[in-house]
């Protein structure tokens, strides 16, 4: 059960971020004024992939809650470190983002830091 929940958390988070990133890049640079934020809220309601992304975030949130009641936090948090690495790699291959050495090194440092934070 723990492993099922863990993979639900990771997959749902990664899917949510990939969908959001793809949709937001297509939408173009958005404003962060009050009107801009209201527009983003409307976009969630109008664009199915964004709605799906929010649904994935909700699934991931509740699976995470169920997970922390069952599994020690020292297992849960490293899993979210895994999520950064998976997300970055998928961003390269699916979203065609350019990953330099510096960015890759930064991602690995962050992942290592999250694992230590869980101790």
């Amino acid at each position, binding site marked *: 059960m723990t492993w099922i929940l863990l993979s639900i958390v990771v997959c749902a988070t990664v899917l949510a971020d990939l969908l*959001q990133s793809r949709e937001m890049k297509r939408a173009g640079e958005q404003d962060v004024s009050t009107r801009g934020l209201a527009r983003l809220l409307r976009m969630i309601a109008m664009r199915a992939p964004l709605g799906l992304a929010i649904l994935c975030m909700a699934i991931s949130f509740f699976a995470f809650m169920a997970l922390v009641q069952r599994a020690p936090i020292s297992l849960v948090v490293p899993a979210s470190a895994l999520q950064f690495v998976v997300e970055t790699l998928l961003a390269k291959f699916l979203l065609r983002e350019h990953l330099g050495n510096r960015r890759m090194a930064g991602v690995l440092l962050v992942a290592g830091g999250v694992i230590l*934070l869980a101790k």
Partner: protein
Amino acid sequence: MASECVVRELHANSEPPLRPAQCRTHSQTLLLTCAVITLNAFGNLALASGMKHRELLGFNPLGYLSALFDPLVAAGVGLLILWLLTRMALMSWADLSFVAPITAAGYVLSAILGRVFLSEQVSLEQWLGMALILAGSGLVGTTAHKTPAPPLEQVSMPLAGQGGERPI
């Protein structure tokens, strides 16, 4: 500078707009990143301190609803909604491989806020982990925040293996 950006009104049946020119500077992007991180950390803090003195939630939806009437919980939810929207805006400015690792700095802020306001203990390993996260997100912060858009007519793959050197 922001006024140079063409703000496109979205119509339900309009085609997706062409890829816009990049008009947010790197410092504007870093500033919004800081806002996203702060909103997340304070949202989580408000939520955590509001939930701490409540009994454990099960599958009863009424428990969640009544939790929303707690002012701290409500403030936390409000901050997290703002976090979601500003993070979406940030994703329209920057790459996912930029946003995801750099916002991990929020873990550090959360841990520090937890120590200050909820008097949670932070071990030596955790301080080390926080230093690594800060170093990593700082490093990511020095990279260009957005992959330049390819020319619109070009659909093929980038030049991998076309006359370039192949690793043996």
